[in-house]
C-alpha cells in the first residue's frame, strides 16, 4: 500500500500503527475469493475460451463483488461500536456526566463491550457523586465547627476585652482615653470580622429563615462589604427544595458573588431567582470584564459549583450574557419528580 493510504488509518486510530480491522478482514476475504475464482476459472473452464466462459466469469465477478460488500457490511457492523467506544473513551469526563455510547445493544461482542462500557461509566459517575457528596459534607461540617469555635472562643474573648476597655475608660486619666478609644474601635472591628466570617462559614439564616431570606441577606452583605451593589429579584415563595439543595443553591450564589467581587471588576450585579412549577432558576449577572477566555479550564471555584450543581441534579452554565458585557451564571434546578435525586 502507498504511504498516503497508510496515513489515514493512523490518524483515525490516533495512536499505534495498525490497519483497521475492517480493511484487514475485507482485504483477506477478497484475496481469498479472488484466488478461489481464478482457480475455478482456470481449472474448470473449457480448453478454449468461449462466450460461455466469459459469461461464467462475469457471474463470478458479480458474486465476488457481492460477497465483498456483505463482508464490508458485516464487519462494519461489528467494528462501528468499537470506534464509538474508542472516541468516547478518549473524551469522556466525569465532571460532565451523562455521556454514553449511543445505541449500545448487546447484539454482538462489540455491542456487548459498548454496553458494558456504558454500565461502567454509570457506576463510576455514581461513585464519583458519592465521593463528592461525602467530601462536601465533610467541608460543611468543618466549616460549622470553625464557625462555632470562632464564635465561642474568639468572639466571646473579644466581647470581654471590649467590656474591660469600657470599664478602664471610666477610671483612666483623660489623656489616655483617645488611645483607649482606638483600642476599643479595633476590638469592635475584630468582633465584627469574627461575626462576618462565622456567618459566611455557617449560613445561619438559611436554617432559620429559609433560602429567600438567606439569599437576601447574602446580597445585602455583599453590597456592604465588597462594595458590589447587588440588585435582587427573588420570586417568593421559593418552593421547598430540601436542605441539601437549598445549601447547594446558597453556596453557588455565594461563590458566584465572591467571583464577581474578586474578578469581574464590576461594582454591580443582579441576582434573580425565579421558579415555575417544574424549574427553579438562579441567575447572577455582572457587568464586569467577562470571562477570561473561552474554553479555558475551570478554576477551583467553578469546579466546586459544578460539583454541587451535579449533586442536586441541576444544570450550571456560565456564559457571557446575551446583551452587554459581563458574565451570566445560570443554575437550573428541576423541581419535584423531574429532579434526579442522584
Amino acid at each position, binding site marked *: 500500500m502507498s504511504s498516503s493510504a497508510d496515513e489515514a488509518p493512523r490518524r483515525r486510530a490516533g495512536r499505534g500503527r495498525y490497519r483497521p480491522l475492517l480493511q484487514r478482514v475485507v482485504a483477506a476475504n477478497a484475496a481469498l475469493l479472488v484466488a478461489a475464482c481464478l482457480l475455478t476459472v482456470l481449472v474448470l473452464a473449457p480448453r478454449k475460451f468461449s462466450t460461455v466462459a466469459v459469461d461464467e466469469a462475469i457471474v463470478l465477478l458479480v458474486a465476488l463483488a457481492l460477497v465483498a460488500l456483505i463482508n464490508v457490511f458485516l464487519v462494519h457492523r461489528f467494528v462501528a461500536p468499537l470506534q464509538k467506544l474508542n472516541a468516547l473513551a478518549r473524551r469522556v469526563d466525569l465532571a460532565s456526566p451523562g455521556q454514553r455510547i449511543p445505541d449500545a445493544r448487546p447484539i454482538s461482542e462489540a455491542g456487548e463491550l459498548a454496553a458494558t462500557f456504558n454500565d461502567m461509566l454509570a457506576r463510576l459517575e455514581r461513585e464519583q457523586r458519592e465521593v463528592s457528596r461525602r467530601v462536601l*459534607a465533610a467541608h*460543611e*461540617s468543618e466549616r*460549622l*465547627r470553625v464557625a*462555632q469555635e470562632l*464564635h*465561642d472562643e474568639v*468572639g*466571646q*474573648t473579644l*466581647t*470581654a*476585652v*471590649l*467590656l*474591660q*476597655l*469600657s*470599664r478602664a*475608660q*471610666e*477610671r483612666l486619666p483623660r489623656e489616655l482615653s483617645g488611645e483607649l478609644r482606638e483600642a*476599643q474601635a479595633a476590638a*469592635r472591628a475584630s*468582633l*465584627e470580622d469574627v*461575626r462576618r466570617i462565622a*456567618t459566611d462559614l*455557617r449560613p*445561619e*439564616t438559611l*436554617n*432559620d*429563615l*429559609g433560602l*429567600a*431570606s438567606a439569599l*437576601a441577606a447574602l446580597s445585602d452583605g455583599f453590597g456592604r462589604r465588597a462594595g458590589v451593589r447587588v440588585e435582587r429579584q427573588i420570586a*417568593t*415563595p*421559593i*418552593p*421547598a427544595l*430540601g*436542605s*441539601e439543595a437549598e*445549601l447547594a443553591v446558597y453556596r453557588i450564589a455565594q461563590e458566584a458573588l465572591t467571583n464577581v467581587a474578586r474578578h469581574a471588576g464590576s461594582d454591580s450585579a443582579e441576582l434573580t431567582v425565579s421558579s415555575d412549577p417544574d424549574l427553579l432558576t438562579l441567575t447572577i449577572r455582572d457587568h464586569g470584564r467577562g470571562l477570561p477566555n473561552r474554553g479555558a479550564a475551570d478554576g477551583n471555584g467553578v469546579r466546586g459549583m459544578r460539583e454541587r450543581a451535579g449533586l442536586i441534579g441541576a444544570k450550571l452554565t456560565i456564559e457571557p450574557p446575551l446583551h452587554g458585557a459581563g458574565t451570566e451564571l445560570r443554575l437550573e434546578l428541576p423541581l419535584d419528580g423531574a429532579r434526579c435525586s442522584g
Partner: protein
Amino acid sequence: MLTGGRDAKRGSEDRTPGTDASAKQVRLMIVDDHPAVRLGLQQLLDCQPNFSVAAVCIDAEGAAARAEAERIDVAVVDYQLGGRNGLWLCRQLRRLPDPPHVIIFSAFANDHLAACCAVAGAGAVLNKGVLGSELCDAVRSVVRGRRLLPRVSQPLADMLRRRLPEREQMLFGMLLAGIPRVEIARTLAMSARELNCRADAMLRDLEPLPGEASASDRPQRRLDRERLIPRPRPASPLRG
C-alpha cells in the same frame, strides 16, 4: 444594630432622669456561659453608680432559680447559653410576680432575634459589640420601662407571621409593635396567663432553634448541623 432611637418617642413620656427611678439602686443579674464575658460584665456594671450586681449565673436554669429567691431589677442574659437559651430564661423571669426587665446580649443580635425577644417580653436586645457605656445606658432605659428592640423589617415580619396559625397572627403583630401586654390582654379579652401561654407557643414556631427542645440544646444543635440533618420546620405558605 441597636436602634433605640426609633423607640425613643415611646419612651418620651417616661420620667426624666434624676427622679426616683434612676436614683434607686438597680439590682442586676448577669447570665453568660463564658467566664471572661461574665467577669467583664460584672466589673463593668458593678462600678456604675446605682448599679449593684446581685447575681452572676452561668446557665438559664440556675438563673431562673436565683431570680425566684431574690429581687432582680434587670437581667443581662446571653442568648446562647449552655442548656436552655436566653429566651427561655426571659419567659421564666417575666412570669415572676415582680418581673425583672431582661436585656438579651447576643453575638448575633439580628432582626429575627429581635422579633423573638419582642414575643418573649425582653426589654432590649444588644449586640455583643456594643460599648460598655451603651450597655449601661440600655440598663437605665429598660429600668424606666423603655423598650429597645430594633424595628423588624416588614418582609421578615411578614415571613415570620406566616409561620404562625392564623389566630395568633394578630397577637404577634401587637407584640411586635410593642403594645404593653396589659393592654393586649384587655383588648383581646384574655388573662395574662393565657397571653403568656400563647406567646410561648408562638416562640416555638418563631425561634431560630427550638428553645424548649432539650436541656442539651446546644450540643444537640451542633450535632444536627454537623450531620446536616434538616431541622423540622413548621409548614408555612412561604415554604410551599
